[in-house]
C-alpha cells in the first residue's frame, strides 16, 4: 500500500505502547476483565469512529467510559435516552436571557469529548437522527449558529438487546454510522469473583454530615495517566501503521464474500472495508506492531461487519445467526470466492 505518512519507528511505537499500557492499567484498577471492550474503546478513540455497545445492564459500561475519560483527561457526558427526550436536550437550545432580553445559546451535553448515549434505542427516531447527524458531521446548528464539536469527539452508545418493548430499533443506515458495534459478554467466573471481592472491599463514605455506601465511581482516581497530546500522537501513529497489499486483498475478499453469502440479503458497504482497515491499524498499534496482520481482521470482523449485514428472512426463520455467518465468512477466506467454508458454522 502506498504510505503517505512516514513509517512508524520503534521509538514512536514504544511511546504509544507506554501510553496505551498506562490507560489499560488505570482502567483495570476499576473494571475487571473486559479487555476486549477496552481495546474497542481505544480503537474508537484513536480512529475517531463511534462505538455502539450491546449488552445487558450491569456490565460496567458507564464505569468503563468514565474511567477512560478520566485516564486521558477528556470531558465526559452521559445522556440517558428516554422516549420523551428531545433533540434540544442533546444538542442545546436558545434560551431567553431576561436580564438582557436576548436569546442566548445554551449548548447541550453533546459538546464533550466522550459522550455516553445510554440505551440509544429508547429515544424517538428524531432524537436518534439528531445525534447520528451530529456524529457524522461533527458540528451542531443551534438557532442560526453552527458550532463545531470538540475534538476528539467520540460517541459510545449502548443498547439493551433483551428488552425490546418501547424501543425504536436503529435502521441500517444509522447503524452504519457506528464504526464498531461490540456485543458485551458476561464476565468469566474468575472475573466475576474478582468483581465481588473488589466490591466487598468498598466501604461507606461520610458526606455532608451523613454517609453513603461507596461505589466504584467513588474510587476513580481523578489524576489522568495520559494527556491529550499523547492521545493525538497515538491517533497520528495509527495512520502510520503499515497496511500491506495482501491485507487489503483480505479485506476486499471478506467484504465481497458478505455480499455473496446465500443467507445474506444486504452485504457490507464499502464503509465496512474502510472501517476494517482503520480499526485494524489501531489494533495493530495496540498490540505493539507497526503493520497489520490477518489476526486484526479476524478479531474485528464481527464488530465491524455484523451490524452492516441484513440476513434473509428465510435464514432468520431457520435460526441462522449473523455471528455464525461472519465466522463462516472468515473460515472461507483463502478458498475460492463464493465457496462456503469446508466445515462452515450454521445456526
Amino acid at each position: 500500500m502506498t504510505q503517505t505518512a512516514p513509517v512508524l519507528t520503534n521509538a514512536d511505537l514504544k511511546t504509544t505502547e507506554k501510553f496505551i499500557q498506562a490507560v489499560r492499567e488505570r482502567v483495570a484498577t476499576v473494571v475487571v476483565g473486559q479487555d476486549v471492550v477496552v481495546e474497542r474503546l481505544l480503537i474508537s478513540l484513536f480512529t475517531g469512529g463511534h462505538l455502539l455497545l450491546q449488552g445487558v445492564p450491569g456490565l460496567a459500561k458507564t464505569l468503563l467510559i468514565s474511567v477512560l475519560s478520566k485516564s486521558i483527561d477528556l470531558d465526559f457526558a452521559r445522556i440517558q435516552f428516554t422516549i420523551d427526550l428531545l433533540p434540544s436536550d442533546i444538542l442545546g437550545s436558545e434560551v431567553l436571557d431576561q436580564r438582557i432580553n436576548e436569546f442566548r445559546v445554551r449548548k447541550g451535553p453533546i459538546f464533550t469529548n466522550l459522550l455516553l448515549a445510554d440505551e440509544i434505542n429508547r429515544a424517538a427516531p428524531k432524537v436518534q437522527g439528531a445525534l447520528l447527524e451530529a456524529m457524522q458531521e461533527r458540528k451542531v446548528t443551534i438557532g442560526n449558529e453552527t458550532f463545531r464539536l470538540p475534538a476528539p469527539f467520540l460517541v459510545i452508545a449502548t443498547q439493551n438487546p433483551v428488552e425490546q418493548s418501547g424501543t425504536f430499533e436503529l435502521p441500517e443506515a444509522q447503524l452504519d454510522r457506528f464504526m464498531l458495534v461490540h456485543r458485551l459478554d458476561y464476565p468469566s467466573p474468575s472475573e466475576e469473583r474478582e468483581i465481588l471481592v473488589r466490591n466487598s472491599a468498598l466501604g461507606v463514605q461520610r458526606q455532608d454530615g451523613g454517609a453513603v455506601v461507596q461505589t466504584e465511581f467513588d474510587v476513580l482516581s481523578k489524576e489522568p495517566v495520559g494527556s491529550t497530546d499523547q492521545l493525538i500522537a497515538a491517533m497520528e501513529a495509527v495512520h502510520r501503521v503499515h497496511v500491506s497489499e495482501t491485507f487489503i486483498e483480505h479485506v476486499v475478499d471478506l467484504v465481497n464474500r458478505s455480499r455473496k453469502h446465500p443467507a445474506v440479503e444486504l452485504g457490507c458497504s464499502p464503509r465496512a472495508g474502510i472501517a476494517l482497515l482503520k480499526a485494524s491499524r489501531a489494533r495493530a498499534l495496540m498490540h505493539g506492531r507497526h503493520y497489520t496482520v490477518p489476526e486484526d481482521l479476524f478479531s474485528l470482523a464481527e464488530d465491524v461487519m455484523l451490524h452492516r449485514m441484513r440476513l434473509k428472512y428465510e435464514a432468520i426463520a431457520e435460526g441462522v445467526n449473523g455471528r455464525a455467518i461472519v465466522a463462516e465468512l472468515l473460515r472461507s477466506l483463502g478458498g475460492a470466492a463464493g465457496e462456503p467454508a469446508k466445515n462452515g458454522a450454521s445456526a
Partner: protein
Amino acid sequence: MSRRFNTWRGMWLCIAIALTSLSTAAAQLPSVGMPGRVTELVLPGSEVEVRARDAKDPLVLRITRVAPHGSAFRYDFEYVALEAGKYDLRDALRRRDGTPIVTDPGDPNALPSIPVEVTSVLAPGIVKPHVPEPQALPRFGAYRTWLVAAGVVWLAGLALVLFGLRKKHAAMAAARWKPRTLAERLRPLVESALAGTLEREQRAQLELGLVAFWRRKLAMEHESPVRTMSLLRDHAQAGPLLKSLEAWLHMPTPPADVDLKALLEPYRDMPADAIPEFDTAALSAPHSSGGR
C-alpha cells in the same frame, strides 16, 4: 542438231524461271517493316552509296553488296519502309566520289529510277494500328520479388512451428510435472512470495489457504477464527511458516534471512493435494515464472 536443241531448251528454262521469279516477286511485295531486296542491279557510272538519312524519312535503305561490273557497279539493296507506298531508291543514293547524280536519260552515266513498292497488311482504310486497350498494371514486383517473399514466409513459418513446438513441449513437461508432497507444491509458491513475484490475490490465497489447512488438520473448526489464528501461530508445526509468511507479506521491510528447507519440513510427508483451497485458478498454475 542436238546441240541447238539443248541451247533452246536452256533458254526456255531460263525464261520460265525468270517469269516464275517475277510473278513470285510481284505477289510477295514487302509489307511495312519487313525488308525488301533488290539484287544484282547494275547501275552505270561511279559507285553509289546511301545518303545520310533523315529521322523522319519513311524508308531505310542499305547496300548489302557492291561488285564492279565493267565500268559500272552491281549492287544488292535491302530496304525497309515504315509506311506503305511507292518509293524510288535512287532518291536515297549519292555518288561516293561526290559527283552529282544525273537523271537525264541521254547521259550514259545517268542513274535510272529504282522503283519499289511496299504494301500494308492492315485492312483498307486503316492507316494505323488500334490504340491498345488499357490494361491493369502488372502485380507489384516480379518473379524475384515473389521468390524472396515466398522464402521469407517459409522461414517465418518454420520459426513459428519450431517455437510453437518448443513451447508446447515445455507446457507438456510442466503439465506432466506434479509435486509429490505438499512441501514440493509449496516451495515454488513460497519462493515466489519471498521474491515478491506472486500476484496479490495469490499471496492472499496462499496465506489464508494455509490457515484453513491447519485449522482442518488440527480439528479447530469450532474455535473462533481469532483464537484459531493465535493457536496456529504458537503451534510447533504450523507456526513457523505461518509466522514467516505473515512477516514477508505484511511487514513494510520483511526479514531477509530465510531457511526455506526448515520451514517446509513439516509438509514433507503430506500429500500434494492436501490443501484443496489451492486448487483454484489463482494457485493451480505453475509459479516458477510467476510475475507481480
